[in-house]
């Protein structure tokens, strides 16, 4: 009886691993039941944490308040200067037709619902899904960034009101990056079971002739089509050249996944909305004329 039950469960697991299997649909109702409860518990926990923080931080806040008051005066002056600088920047931007780096992407804000349960059950769930317009088809994905627009992960599955994010440091994550300089070396950044404990990623595919230096910034290369070009990923912290045929490096991501509460999902605009290809000139332009 037990053996039969275990066999049945193994069959469910194998079936669940197959893309578009009915097992995924079977867990949807359970998700619908447990998600609201989990949100309530999370909100209650957050409220409790905030209350505790409010009490414990009270004294520090009072002192900080005094300090901040003096800073306000200084900042008022800086704001006035910045306003002038901003106006100048806008003028220059218009003049040189500077295009926003990610203007062809819609940015969706999301809050983290749940995190990893242990080292092998390690998906991040967020509170937006297909109802909000997120759709991930087989083979496609959406880039996920933090508030500073640093790469955090990618959307691996979307549900009705929640989505699952594969974090950057997970061993299943891969992205092609490049050193952020002219003709910078192209490398492959991936998660690693050992390095993820230190919040690091593994860098492979390094050309022996163009080895990135420690401290080099790595950004997404845009190759592969999953991620837009130029999203900051992190910096190189060490390079291992002991095997010339397999030079590897470690990368410290800019984003600290453990402390992130809100994140942003980058959804490419439909081609007819944002861009068109000029058949004569073969140039890609925005419909707004930029």
């Amino acid at each position: 009886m037990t053996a039969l039950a275990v066999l049945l469960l193994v069959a469910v697991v194998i079936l669940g691993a197959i893309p578009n299997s009915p097992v995924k649909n079977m867990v949807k109702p359970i998700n619908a039941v447990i998600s609201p409860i989990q949100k309530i518990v999370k909100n209650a926990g957050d409220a409790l944490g905030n209350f505790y923080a409010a009490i414990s931080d009270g004294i520090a806040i009072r002192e900080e308040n005094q300090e901040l008051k003096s800073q306000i005066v200084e900042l008022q002056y800086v704001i006035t200067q910045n306003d002038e600088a901003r106006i100048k920047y806008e003028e220059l931007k218009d003049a040189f037709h500077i295009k926003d780096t990610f203007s062809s992407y819609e940015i969706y804000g999301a809050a983290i619902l749940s995190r990893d349960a242990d080292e092998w059950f390690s998906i991040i769930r967020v509170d937006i899904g297909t109802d909000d317009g997120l759709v991930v088809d087989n083979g496609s994905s959406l880039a996920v960034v933090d508030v500073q627009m640093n790469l955090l992960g990618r959307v691996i599955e979307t549900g009705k009101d929640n989505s699952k994010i594969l974090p950057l440091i997970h061993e299943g994550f891969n992205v092609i990056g490049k050193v952020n300089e002219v003709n910078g070396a192209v490398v492959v950044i991936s998660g690693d079971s050992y390095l993820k404990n230190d919040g690091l990623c593994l860098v492979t595919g390094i050309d022996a002739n163009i080895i990135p230096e420690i401290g080099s910034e790595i950004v997404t290369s845009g190759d592969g089509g999953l991620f837009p070009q130029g999203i900051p990923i992190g910096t190189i912290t060490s390079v291992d050249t002991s095997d010339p045929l397999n030079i590897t490096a470690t990368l410290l991501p800019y984003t600290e996944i453990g402390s992130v509460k809100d994140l942003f999902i980058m959804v490419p605009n439909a081609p007819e909305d944002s861009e068109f290809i000029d058949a004569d000139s073969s140039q890609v332009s925005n419909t707004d004329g930029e």
Partner: protein
Amino acid sequence: MVNNMIDSALIRKIVVYFIYTMLIVCVQVSFPNSFTFNHQVMDFMFVYVCLVSYYFGTIDGLIIGCVVGICRDVLATPVIVGTDGNANLVYGLGLLLMVGVSLLSSNFFTKHTRRKFSFAMMDVLVMTILYKLFGHIVNLGFNIFILGKNYSLSFQQVLFDSITTQFILNLLAALPVVVLLRFMGPYRSGINPRLLNKSEFGGDDNWLTI
């Protein structure tokens, strides 16, 4: 009168199990950073299933194991990298894990010893070690034989950073769970009456002591 007593006991059991299961599952996935040490997370779900199974028997353990396992799959789905390099969500592993743990825990020395606190801790310890060892062995085999690459964790890292840290954390997590289950648990007396009646339910007659 007797029916009312049975009903109230049953309602208490269902309500308590529901509240504890939802609470433990939600706390585990909502605030893992609060229970993390040396990159390992206190696994309240795992400990809860171990202890319910150990203290209250196979039937309770299996039901709670199934519910917790499904919740684990839904809320913290595991990811497996395929041979094509793509990461795939795999549903059912949590269910398999929790059902396995509940079956093993409910039979952990319960035939010949009383279900006491020290053995409950021993159960959590042994199950954690088994789970971690099994997980690392499966990962190692998968990496070497299917993906054709090395497993990046060394034996020492597996032994000390992963297994040792995890069982210490799980033993700590077990303390509040034991208190909840024994003194504010699904059974008023802290004992599952089915386990006292060997002939009727096929259980053992080793009642609970702490």
